[in-house]
Structure formats: structure tokens, C-alpha cells
């Protein structure tokens, strides 16, 4: 019955980042299942993963994401706003406090659906950056405007201000219904936009980021 080792007497060897991650980030396994992440965000990250790595987890050559860490941040739960006629305006806040200091931000994008096909109509959506003390409000433009599927709008400049990174990002998700009214309010909440942080984790044991493959601009 040894007396429990006091932390001070433990050798101060830095645990491997994977083991650190296990200790720090692994949610307690008390009934906690991966299932708690679901829907569009999980599908989007699984697709991102399959593009970046093979079925054994080996990073694909030349298809790298250009960094060793990508974090998906979901909007903190806001009460879902009701529709106002054809309009739907939902405030979204992404909290960024508590990011590990060793993770340096390279790029940040918000992923959303610019248009959503419904039974009798189509939803056209946009993202608006809400004005704060340091930055005026403005409409965000996606880098590419796909006819279907997800668009990514770059929000890097709004996350890194003069005095370091901001604590949160506040957006408005604005949708308008084009076409006949539906019998019920469209389920926009299912496709809340989410934030992607492309980070370089500088801790030992993380694969050094590979230079992002040159994108051929069309």
C-alpha cells in the first residue's frame, strides 16, 4: 500500500503528444461514445480524412492538407430562431478560448451550404460577419461557389487581431426561401455552418506540416 506518488516526485518527462492527447482530450470513457458527433460536421470531417489518408491512416502523398491538425468547431448552442416569412436569420457564436498554445493558426474557414433544395422551393443562404469593436460587419464570400454542396469562406483575418487571437467569432446565418411556401419550416438547423481551424501543432511527435500542394488556379 504505497502512499500515492505526489505529482512533484513524478519524473517531469513530457508524455508523448498522443498520450498527452489521450490524457487531456480523451473524453472520459464513462459511457462517452464517438456517436456524440454526428450529422453534417462528422460526414464532412470523414470526407476530409478520406481525402488526406488511406484506410490504414497513412497520409496520402501530395494530398496533404498542408498541416498536421484541423479542428472542426461547432457553433455554441443558440436558441433556434423561428422563420420570419421567407426569412431565417440565426446568430452563431464560435468560442475559441482554450486552444492549445502549441497549435498555431494557419487558416480558418467557415463551411456552409449556400443553397439547400427543399420539396417545393430552394433555400439561398449567406453568412454575415457581425460587427464587433475592432471589425465592421460584412457579407462573407466563399472561395468557390459550388452549385451543390458545401462552400468554404475564409475568416482567417477576423480571427487573428493585433493583440493575438480573438476569443470568439460571431456570425449570422441568413437564409431566404425562393419558391412556394413549404407546409412546415425548413430544417435549416440541421446544416448550421461550422468553423474549420487549420493549425500547425508545434509539439514534438506531430508530423511536420507538408507544404500545401500548389493549387492550379483555373
Amino acid at each position, binding site marked *: 500500500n504505497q502512499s500515492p506518488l505526489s505529482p512533484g516526485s513524478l519524473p517531469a518527462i513530457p508524455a508523448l503528444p498522443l498520450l498527452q492527447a489521450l490524457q487531456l482530450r480523451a473524453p472520459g470513457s464513462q459511457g462517452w461514445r464517438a456517436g456524440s458527433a454526428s450529422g453534417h460536421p462528422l460526414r464532412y470531417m470523414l470526407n476530409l480524412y478520406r481525402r488526406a489518408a488511406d*484506410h*490504414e491512416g497513412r497520409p496520402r502523398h501530395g494530398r496533404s492538407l498542408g498541416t498536421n*491538425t484541423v479542428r*472542426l468547431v461547432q457553433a455554441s448552442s443558440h436558441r433556434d430562431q423561428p422563420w420570419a416569412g421567407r426569412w431565417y436569420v440565426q446568430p452563431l457564436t464560435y468560442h475559441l478560448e482554450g486552444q492549445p498554445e502549441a497549435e498555431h493558426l494557419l487558416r480558418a474557414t467557415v463551411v456552409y451550404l449556400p443553397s439547400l433544395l427543399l420539396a417545393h422551393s430552394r433555400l439561398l443562404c449567406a453568412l454575415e460577419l457581425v460587427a464587433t469593436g475592432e471589425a465592421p460587419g460584412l457579407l462573407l464570400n466563399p472561395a468557390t461557389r459550388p452549385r451543390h454542396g458545401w462552400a468554404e469562406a475564409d475568416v482567417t483575418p477576423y480571427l487573428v487581431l493585433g493583440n493575438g487571437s480573438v476569443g470568439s467569432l460571431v456570425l449570422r446565418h441568413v437564409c431566404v426561401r425562393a419558391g412556394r411556401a413549404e407546409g412546415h419550416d425548413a430544417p435549416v438547423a440541421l446544416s448550421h455552418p461550422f468553423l474549420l481551424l487549420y493549425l500547425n501543432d508545434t509539439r514534438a511527435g506531430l508530423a511536420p506540416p507538408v507544404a500545401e500542394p500548389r493549387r492550379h488556379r483555373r
Partner: protein
Amino acid sequence: DTGTLAYDLPSYLREQGGDKSDCSLRPFPVSFAQLGWDHWIIAPHRYNPRYCKGACPRLLRYDYHAPNHAVVQSFVHQLVDANVPRPSCVPYRYSPISVLMIERDGGILYKEYENMIAESCTCR
């Protein structure tokens, strides 16, 4: 005394034939469920870290990338003092893997960890 070495060359050469018990890379596919991490690691489903096992041959072939120290240690073990162990069979080159994890706050994290799969072995 190279004479004895030359005399004993046949057994050395036989050994160079690559005995199955020689130091080599072996597969060991494992699931994150077996490691007790499946409640938060969602990809990859399969992971084969592989491992190195086997005796380091007495004459270390060039392809073992063994440092000179291991060659000397091997001779010391054979010719001077058997209490000095033969060099050990350990991984030489590694490759990374990418992992998709669920975070405590419901976020989803993609990470690339280096040195997660052994690609070759050496004697050290």
C-alpha cells in the same frame, strides 16, 4: 585471429542466409477498440504499427543500417564477454498516421502523428 573466423565461415555464411529468427519487421494489426481508445478515435478503423523481433545476426549485414557501435558490441559479445548482450532488434525507420478524433466539447479533430508505423528494423 582471422584464421578462426575464416575456418568458421560456413556457419557464418549459413547464418547470413537470413534465419527466420533473425531480426525482422513483423505485422501486428490492432484496432483502437483493443487499445481502449475507440470511444474517441473514429478513424482509421485499422492500424498496423508493426514491430521488430528476432536475434541480431553475428555479422551485421549492411542492410541492417547498424551503427559501428553495434558491430563492435556484437564482436565483444562473441569474442570477449558473453555478458555483454548482442545488439537489440529495434525499429529503424517510421512513418506517420492521420487520426480523426472526437473532442470533449463535441469538436472533431484531424491530426497527423509521426513515428506511428515501423517501416524497417535495425540492430543497436
